[in-house]
């Protein structure tokens, strides 16, 4: 590649909407440089399925938090998230990515 890229991690957290502020607070505490929250429309898990237009308020809805982070910070982030996603409905996955502006993460 003529353009240099840098290895980072992409953390994806599917979390029930009412607990979102806890997740973002946890990311803040763990030193994540940023995150973006994506809405979800519907889903299924062990607890049955849900649809956005079939709920009042936040309960029962899932949102998806994406956080690009340096690999070094990942253990701290996962550590902070673990109790949260054990108490609340939540799924955390981490993937390898390449970014073009290393200084941001």
């Amino acid at each position, binding site marked *: 590649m003529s353009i240099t890229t840098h290895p980072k991690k992409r953390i994806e957290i599917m979390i029930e909407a*009412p*607990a979102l502020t806890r997740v973002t607070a946890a990311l803040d*505490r763990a030193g994540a440089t940023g995150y973006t929250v994506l809405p979800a429309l519907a889903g299924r898990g062990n607890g*049955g399925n849900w*649809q956005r*237009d*079939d*709920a*009042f308020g936040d*309960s029962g809805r899932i949102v998806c938090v994406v956080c690009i982070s340096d690999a070094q910070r990942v253990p701290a982030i996962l550590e902070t998230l673990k109790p949260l996603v054990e108490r609340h409905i939540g799924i955390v996955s981490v993937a390898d990515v390449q970014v073009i502006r290393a200084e941001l993460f």
Partner: protein
Amino acid sequence: MTSMIEIAQQNLLSPMVLFFALGLFASFVKSDLSIPEAIAKTMAVYLMMAIGFKGGVELANAGASATLFAVLAAGAAVSAVLPLIGFGLLSATSKLARVDRAAVAAHYGSISIVTFVAATQAVTTAGLAYDGYLIAVAAVMESPAIITALMLARRGQPAPATPDPDAAQTSGHLWREIAFNSSVLMLTGAFVIGMVTGKPGLEMISPFIIDPFRGVLCLFLLDMGLIAGRGLRGGAGKLPLPVIAFGLYMPVLGGLLAAGLAMAIGLSAGSAALFITLAASASYIAVPAAMRLALPEAKPSIYLTLSLGVTFPFNLALGIPFYIWLAETVT
């Protein structure tokens, strides 16, 4: 005094209840009919804005009275006490976990503003008048039940070994959310604005908040029917019978308690009917959200299905006429 059968019939054949039934039907035949979440949310804000404002204007016209404070206090007390009764009954009759009993009980102490709104329509149709401050009572009854329920749930929990920074931060968050949750804030805010601007204010915006009100309510109840029906299809079969029964008798118990208080305070028939309805109704927006935060171990498939799928339709179709009849009887 209208006969109970008459009120019930008027109620069941009102466009509001029929649109709710249409929503239920649509969900049972798995139709793709749905109301976007953004619209449902805004209609909820609209209903609270309209009912709050109207109540404030009425209070401004009537002036505050000693009764007002008596009912506010009675409302808060009912909201705080009902979860204790509910928790006791669930403990005696069901095998639900402690946390689930507490969570369910919280819903029945708090209120459903849409049930209240539907009752105001039925009360008006029945030819009764009610006091504007009932809206303030509704706002006051939203939250005490949550606090009672949290205490009930926590009494059963061992103190956590390690202090949880997240829990601490959350607890502050939770109290603020309970005090300033959007329903309470919108109801109270619109109520105060109505009080301040009075009749001239109402005249300015009545083509928005008064005239189309029932029509918007129909659309909202259509959505409620869709959602309640989907909840029922998904979860009601799995609810234990004693829990389903609770969803039917608990509102009546709450209503009777409120009827006694209404009699003691000396409310008019219309106001008593609404106060009874508040006690009898169960929350399905504010309390579930608070429970997910405070008691995530409690299962929403129990409390939401019960409140939205069992108690709400029961109140809408049969409860409200009964509460009106009860109010006319005790006052």
